[in-house]
């Protein structure tokens, strides 16, 4: 090899890493559950009674709408049921549901299609901080003047708004974030639902003494997102202690590392590790295995989002009625409550060629008939945010527990629905604390740095 050729070869070889990280890899490691599996055989009656439509498109020229949604079973069932019911009433409209991957890969697809002007006529996407990253005022159609907005529960609207404009209608149900627990274990050991963290600790000691893992942790494979619930679902308690937390946090005035209420979630993760609450092999247990442990009574508590209830209903139908829900307990029994995750929404990009027809379909989604259409196909994991929409009597017990929190006013949205800022490495930091590699203080400081990067990326003032 001459010097020249070897130099050239070296260059070529060394350039490869530049390209390496650009392509490949597709693991969904989103902070929101990327792949929800819900295939409970619900009655397939998708056609429901007439919906209160606002525009008059029936009898018009034939129109085809394209509808992009993530490929999880839950979302596909939901969007296809809505499309089928709407098409039955409007023979001139055809709605084609397109599937895209979930998780971060899906985020990139949505952003790319919006940026290149190739988005479908309507699309399904998260509300809250993820929506903010789409620059909705530049890319999406403002719906704030539409009459159907009045059908939507007010607490949802901020999560799909930017600069006073409203962009989406809730598609699916809200979810509870907190602790799923096995009621049979509670009965056998004579325990009651904890209202404070101290009570939770006491329950855990008794459960551990009975030879059952008090808390299930699932840090395996691509399921590390499950580690975040102690932190994220504790937000109800954080905002009880600091009523202006979300605004201060967005304005760079409050930090996780220096706020005692905010750092509590990280402390809980460490406590679980130090007191041996987690089951054996928690470092490699996956999400579905974790649900199985809970259903089989091998673990008592699982910090989780309530969509998991429908997964249990599919995998262990006999056990799902023994699974209840409570919010992450705080310091004061009087202020205990639950953190709520808002449903994803359906949006219209500015590049859509059929904006009028798309708005009429959104009006259907935001109606009671739309909610009933979804219920007929997908067992609800929480309440709808459509005024007047009711849950069926057959709803799962865990969902009833969540509804009780909401009905009694003891619930509030998670931070990601109140602030556009969210740091991306929270799940790894939570795993690091939960497996004893990092102290809560270190993790909170790292998370604050992470948040700073995200805020700068959004171009927020004050960072």
């Amino acid at each position, binding site marked *: 090899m001459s010097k020249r050729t070897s130099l050239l070869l*070296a260059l070529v070889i060394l350039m490869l890493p530049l390209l390496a990280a650009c392509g490949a*890899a597709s693991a969904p490691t989103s902070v929101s559950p990327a792949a929800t599996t819900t295939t409970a055989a619900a009655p397939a009656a998708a056609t429901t009674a007439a919906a209160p439509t606002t525009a008059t498109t029936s009898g018009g020229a034939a129109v085809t709408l394209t509808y992009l949604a993530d490929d999880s079973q839950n979302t596909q069932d939901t969007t296809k049921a809505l499309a089928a019911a709407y098409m039955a009433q409007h023979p001139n409209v055809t709605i084609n549901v397109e599937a895209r991957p979930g998780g971060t890969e899906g985020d990139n697809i949505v952003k790319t299609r919006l940026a290149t002007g190739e988005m479908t006529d309507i699309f399904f996407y998260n509300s809250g901080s993820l929506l903010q990253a789409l620059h909705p005022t530049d890319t999406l159609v403002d719906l704030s003047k539409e009459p159907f907005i009045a059908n939507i529960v007010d607490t949802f609207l901020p999560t799909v708004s930017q600069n006073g404009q409203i962009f989406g209608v809730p598609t699916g149900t809200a979810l509870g974030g907190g602790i799923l627990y096995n009621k049979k274990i509670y009965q056998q050991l004579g325990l009651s639902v904890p209202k404070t963290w101290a009570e939770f600790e006491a329950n855990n000691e008794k459960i551990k003494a009975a030879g059952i893992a008090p808390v299930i942790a699932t840090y395996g494979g691509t399921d590390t997102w499950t580690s975040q619930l102690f932190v994220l679902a504790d937000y109800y308690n954080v905002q009880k202690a600091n009523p202006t937390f979300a605004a201060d946090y967005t304005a760079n005035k409050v930090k996780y590392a220096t706020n005692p209420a905010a750092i509590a979630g990280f402390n809980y993760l460490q406590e679980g590790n130090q007191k041996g609450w987690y089951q054996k092999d928690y470092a490699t247990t996956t999400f579905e295995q974790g649900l199985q442990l809970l259903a089989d009574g091998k673990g008592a508590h699982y910090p989780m989002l309530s969509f998991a209830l429908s997964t249990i209903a599919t995998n262990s139908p006999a056990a799902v009625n023994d699974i209840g829900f409570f919010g992450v307990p705080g310091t004061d029994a009087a202020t205990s409550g639950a953190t709520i995750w808002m449903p994803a929404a359906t949006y219209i990009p500015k590049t859509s060629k059929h904006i009028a027809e798309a708005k009429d379909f959104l009006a259907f989604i935001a109606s009671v008939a739309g909610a009933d259409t979804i219920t007929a196909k997908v067992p609800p994991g929480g309440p709808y945010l459509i005024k007047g929409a009711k849950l069926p009597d057959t709803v799962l017990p865990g969902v009833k527990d969540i509804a009780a929190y909401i009905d009694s006013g003891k619930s509030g949205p998670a931070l990601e629905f109140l602030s556009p800022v969210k740091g991306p490495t929270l799940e*790894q930091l939570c795993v690091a604390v939960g497996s004893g590699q990092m102290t809560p203080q270190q993790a909170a400081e790292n998370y604050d740095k992470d948040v700073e990067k995200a805020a700068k990326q959004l171009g927020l003032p004050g960072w």
Partner: protein
Amino acid sequence: MTKQAQPHMLLRTYPGWFYLPAALVFGVFFLVPTALAFYFSLTRWTLFDATFIGLDNYTDFVGDSQLVSGLRNTIIYAIITSGLKVVISLPLAMLLTSSIRLKALFRSIIFFPVLVSTVAVGITFATLLRPSTGLINTVLGSIGLQPPDWLGNPNLALYSVALVDVWKGVGIAMVIFIAGILSIPPDYFEAARLEGGTWVKFRHVILPLSRNATFTVILLSFIGGLRTFDLIWTMTHGGPGFASDVLTSVIFKQYQAGFYGLSTAGNVVLFILVTIIVYPLMRFFNRLELEL
């Protein structure tokens, strides 16, 4: 003179613009993206727009606490994998160039993992290495050993992945060594046979005379180790926590988070770093290269 002129004349009959198609492909798909990458590494890039922010991405990336542990892990990983590949594949190559039965079969078996996709290897081993249900620990447990949690133990995860990398890469190293050994003139082996046994053959013939092959193996697997991504990502995702994070997985996570400018800056840093480490190594090896 004529001997020299002949190929030169031949070369001249092809005009310079024959280079054009290749140059175009190389330029459009390689040079332009590379230059753009350098530019975008200086911006805050959101796909919708890119704001020029100077060197902020670089200061952010260098100030990142994950970077330090990622860098340490990358170097540990590269040294372990390239070292073990040499130590294991050289004796194997020697064995499989001697006259033993079923030589071709053994060569194929050892080479086989090279043909399997890295992602498939990663997923398979992640399953095999599960702490209580995986095949490996079941076997170790049944012979009375107390097997560790290979991928779940933060102190062990990186080494477990490195060992799988060695398992997968030893075949290609062995093939390079076999080629190296076969290119040694037979006279040397004859002399070694007269002088003494296998040890003499190994120590005084194969080891010194397959030096070129050794350098190639070290260099290739060292670069491979520095750039490793797919195996780590499929087996541990850089976890548990950040315990097996390497530079490429840190960069990929930035990309996933939507920090495109930051992640591009990370790639530029990786590029420079690999150059700084590998180029002197390459120069050094080239100087010691043998003419057989």
